[in-house]
Each structure stands twice: as C-alpha cells, then as structure tokens.
C-alpha cells in the first residue's frame, strides 16, 4: 500500500465515524431525562421503604427494558455504557455517585427522615443521572469526531 492510499483510507474511516456521530448522538432531551428518572425512582424508592424499594425496582427494570427497546428501534445500534474510551470516566463517576446515593437513601430509611427529604434525594439523583447522560453523550460524540485511534 502506498502512503497516499493510506491517507485516503484513514480519511474514509474518519468520515464514517463522523457520520456515525451525527446519527447516534442526536439524543432528544426527554431521553436524558428518562435515564435520570430511572435513578431518581430507584433512589427515592429505596429511601421511602422496603415495599417501595421492591415496587421501584420493578418499575426501573421495566423502564430499562423499554428504553433499550426504544434505542434499538431508533438507532439500530447498541452501545455498552461501560465501554472503553472517552466515556468510561463518565460511566465510572456515575457508578461511584450511584453507590453514594443508594447508601444515603438507606441511611434515610433507617433513620426515618421525612418524606420530603427522601423525595429531595430522589430529585438530586434524577438531576445527577440526567446530567451524566448528557455528559456521556458529549464524550461519545467527541470521541467519534476525534477520529480513529
């Protein structure tokens, strides 16, 4: 292979990745909010009571299935959120905060905090997860537009 052919081939790969970025990262605001709602419901239900936690977990699992179904239909691809690359720090920060929020929710349940405090924690979880979803999408788009390897 000649060097000029190598350059043309690399440009072709970058073009394909840019088209992929255009196709996959046009994520509507409601989709980020839906992801945030998953964590919000989970954290709030854990904080409220054991029964609420069971109901909340079932609701969250159902919503996860619906979101997955929607994403596969709309985008025709599946992307693992914990994939290697620029998105991994965002995903790990999300998991770290998730652990802290769940611990806080359990503490609130054990110590009979008011319902408003518990719902407030759920709202914080919602806001954090929505923000994380936006950041993950940005990191993914940046990676795809940055070119291969």
């Amino acid at each position, binding site marked *: *292979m000649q*060097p000029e052919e190598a350059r*043309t081939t690399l440009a072709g790969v970058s073009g*394909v990745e840019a088209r*992929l970025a255009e*196709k996959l990262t046009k994520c509507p605001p409601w989709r980020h909010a839906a992801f945030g709602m998953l964590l919000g419901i989970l954290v709030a239900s854990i904080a409220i009571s054991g029964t609420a936690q069971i109901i909340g977990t079932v609701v969250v699992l159902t919503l996860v299935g619906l979101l997955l179904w929607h994403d596969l239909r709309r985008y025709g691809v*599946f992307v693992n959120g914990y994939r290697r690359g620029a998105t991994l720090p965002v995903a790990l920060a999300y998991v770290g905060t998730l652990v802290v929020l769940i611990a806080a929710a359990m503490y609130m349940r054990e110590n009979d905090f008011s319902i408003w405090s518990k719902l407030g924690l759920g709202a914080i979880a919602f806001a954090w997860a929505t923000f994380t979803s936006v950041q993950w999408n940005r990191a993914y788009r940046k*990676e795809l537009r940055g070119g291969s390897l």
Partner: protein
Amino acid sequence: MSSAIDPVLHAPARLQIAAVLGRVTKAEFAVLKDVTGVSDSVLSKHLSALSEAGYVKLSKAARDGRQRTWASLTRAGAKAFKAHMAALHELAAAAEQAIAAE
C-alpha cells in the same frame, strides 16, 4: 514498520465497517449500510468475508415481523482493526516525514 497491513481489512469499505463496529457493541445491517454508503449486496459480501475471517459475529433477530441482521466485532476483529489502523498511521506519518525532509 512495526504493524502490518491486514489483507482482510484492506478493502476501504471493509475497514469502514470494522471502524463502525469498533465504536458500538452491535449494529444493525441497515445502519451499517447507511453509514458506510454501500449497497446491500456489497455490504453482505464484506460482512461475510469479515465473518469468515472471525473478525465479525453475525446474528439474526426478528423485528416488526422481519428478520434483521446484527453485526458485532469479535475480540480478534478488534485486535486486527487496531493493528491495521496503526499500520496505516505509520504509513501516513512516514509519507509526511518524507515530504518534510524534502
């Protein structure tokens, strides 16, 4: 040159398919066709070649009453893609150095 050009990935369309699959966990046939801009028959041919080389795993799933083909990059495929891209970058860099030296 430390990396070698992979003959399986030499065709630009095949390399582009691998590039897309390297960025997602799995992709549907229609998406690969749309992003790479090749025809159904060309895409089928390239996917078969990549699958035979063990670089791509193909699976079928029903959606809206129709069978859809999904493709994902295997570990061997990801490794080959990375090595091939490194070889291309080395070639391109060598050419730039030669131009700069002139």
